[in-house]
């Protein structure tokens, strides 16, 4: 498709649905139906089968026209993780059912993967799905277990769920991937308060939750393979996004330094500049990685960006607290809240310091990322494994 043809489509959309007078949701649905939601998706599923790169111009034109967006931060899990997985592994019916309300934000998605006993070792998870026939004669699964670190669970309509369907197989083989209705009976969501005082995340308890077999994504026992699509996209999402110099935490630190000369203590300037250099090096490396991805070179390199991002955030925020001295002793608010997104911008340095501790845990710990880099990028040998050919139920835990 030519660039001017695409511009024409945008013009048509805007002509038929004037953003100024059209209801937000109506506009978003129309945009989806015009194939302008995610142009790299197939026609009929919100896209036009174009290269990813074509998206930018569409977004820019719509922003300029004052069109509403789908609040992408709030529905990040759906957009970044569920959607690519549904697209790749779902049936036509599943794609038709889920992708449109996912993209418009009518239906929020969350992720039911991690468990208290299966964090870094996700494939060891124990939530059980047992096959059966429902009261209506429909085939399906009864699910029992506990999931954790589930952001947006309290607002979500759907969840992507990884559950064990065969405990007699080695751990990677007995898993199946489902879509779980968060409004189904037996789904209980409890906020999980974190060290910042708030609860971005939830624990989710699943007690005899019924999932129709039609909500299975991919074949039985193929859950781990399907989940790879989700996890790959999670890491890219976390590390992604082109950023200008001094974006993020280093910007806050630089502002403090510039605007508050009294904070410039003896012996601190070199430390400041070390962090500035590290931030800039991380930024340029992420930029280069994006260029590589655009050029088609894939890889586990995204892990490096996320690893460096977590480390930098922790070092910068820790440094700033000490620089601030007395102000660093204070906190803004310990009230328990349930925010939808992380507010790096408006909270205090103390919040940033505490919240950044999660960066090296959520979405793959820094330790796991180092393993991935060592094995997949550098080709270093794996460690001797005790969990390879053993039935999941017989694993030591």
């Amino acid at each position: 498709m030519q660039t001017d043809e695409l511009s024409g489509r945008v013009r048509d959309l805007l002509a038929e649905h004037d953003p100024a007078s059209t209801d937000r949701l109506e506009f978003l649905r129309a945009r989806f139906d015009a194939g302008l939601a995610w142009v790299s998706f197939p026609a009929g599923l919100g896209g036009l089968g174009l290269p990813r790169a074509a998206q930018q111009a569409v977004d820019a034109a719509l922003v300029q026209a004052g069109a509403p967006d789908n609040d992408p931060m709030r529905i990040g899990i759906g957009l970044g993780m569920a959607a690519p997985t549904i697209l790749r592994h779902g049936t036509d019916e599943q794609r038709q059912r889920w992708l449109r309300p996912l993209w418009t934000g009518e239906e929020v998605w969350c992720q039911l993967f991690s468990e208290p006993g299966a964090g870094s070792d996700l494939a060891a998870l124990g939530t059980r799905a047992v096959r059966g026939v429902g009261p209506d004669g429909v085939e399906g699964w009864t699910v029992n277990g506990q999931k954790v670190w589930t952001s947006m669970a309290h607002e979500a309509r759907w969840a992507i769920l990884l559950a064990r369907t065969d405990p007699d197989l080695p751990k990677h083989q007995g898993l199946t991937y489902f879509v779980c209705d968060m409004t189904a009976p037996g789904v209980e969501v409890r906020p999980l308060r974190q060290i910042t005082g708030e609860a971005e995340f939830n624990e989710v308890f699943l007690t005899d939750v019924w999932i129709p077999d039609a909500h299975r994504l991919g074949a039985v026992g193929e859950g781990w393979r399907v989940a790879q699509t989700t996890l790959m996209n999670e890491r890219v999402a976390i590390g992604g996004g082109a950023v200008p110099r001094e974006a993020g935490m280093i910007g806050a630190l630089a502002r403090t330094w510039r605007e508050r000369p009294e904070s410039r203590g003896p012996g601190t300037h070199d430390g400041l500049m070390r962090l500035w250099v590290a931030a800039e090096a991380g930024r340029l490396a992420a930029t280069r990685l994006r260029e590589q991805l655009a050029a088609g070179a894939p890889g586990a390199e995204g892990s490096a960006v996320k690893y460096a991002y977590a480390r930098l955030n922790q070092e910068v925020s820790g440094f700033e607290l000490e620089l601030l001295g007395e102000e660093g002793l204070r906190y803004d608010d310990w009230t328990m809240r349930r925010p939808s997104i992380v507010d790096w911008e408006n909270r205090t340095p103390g919040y940033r310091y505490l919240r950044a501790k999660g960066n090296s845990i959520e979405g793959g710990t820094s330790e796991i990322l180092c393993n991935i880099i060592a094995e997949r990028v550098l080709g270093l040998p794996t460690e001797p494994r005790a969990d390879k050919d053993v039935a999941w139920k017989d694993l030591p835990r």
Partner: protein
Amino acid sequence: MSTLLYSDVEEELRASVRQALARTAGGVSSGGDPAGDGWAGSDAWRALAGGIGCAALAIPEDRGGAGASWREVAVVAEEVGRAAAPVPWLGAVLGTAALLSCDAVDLLPKVASADLLAVLVLPLSTPPGAPVPAAVRADGGTLTGTVTSVADAHAADLLIVPTPDGLYAVDAARATLTPVTALDQTRPLSTVTFTSAPATLLGDAERAAAAWTSALRVGAAILAAEQLGVADWCLASTVDYVKTRYQFARPVGSFQAVKHRLAQLWVEVTQARAVARYAAGCLADADPDAAVAASLAQAHCAPVAVRAAEECVQLHGGIGFTWEHRAHWYLKRAKSSAIALGTPAQHRALLGELVDLPPR
């Protein structure tokens, strides 16, 4: 140089303190909010200060004290740190140091008997080598002014106030205390305001300056012992956790990267113990190296405690990031302690002056 080891008497003291804190400092140990109603550590404090007699340790016998030394005070601080106990030990230490420095014969016996908790009024972030602040003015036997971020004032009976004109004592009831939302909820901070508050002169300007210097030095050294306790708990609880937490069908603590990090942390904690012991010993012996030792202790122990707490959170994985797990109290305490009485960078800068390594 006196020994860097612990004496049997010190180990007995440690055991008593540990027991008392385990029994009474439930606000923290049960994972609840230690800064809840009233002040959270008051039971623990009574047991510690009066029950065991910790308040008397640093005070000479002829001033009603136990005639022990700052070494024993440091052992108590280690246990306070290990428990992340919300007790006003640092405030009490600073107050006692100031009173000892100006030999307040009337007050010291009451402090020793734990009838009176005297807390020094200064911003907790005061760096080493800072002059006596001019935030409070004395005028005809009364004080007027505001001091921000004062640690442990909420628990004080008596406020010891350094001013450029002299050192004063003010009944805590005659000051206005406004709580500050602190990063470290286990060490409450207040803004202390005096409005023509009746004050008793404890010493003239010269005395006040000496007391100020002494208290900052004692505080830095004792805080280092507290940081050692924090680091110790973080290391020990992490080691325990990784021995029992299985991932990939192995204890997490059997992975070499984890082992090496904990081994390196252990090396640092071992050094912190030696450094903190040395600082306390120098105080006890009135060693001329005390100023160096105190800043050395802060420069080394503060970052070790922070690193230990950060590793504790990280190696506990998700659970370490929750409010329910105790790790976060230690993280907050460690980081705030690294700002308290001067940051490591400030202590390193001061050390440079003290050991003839000037910045330029």
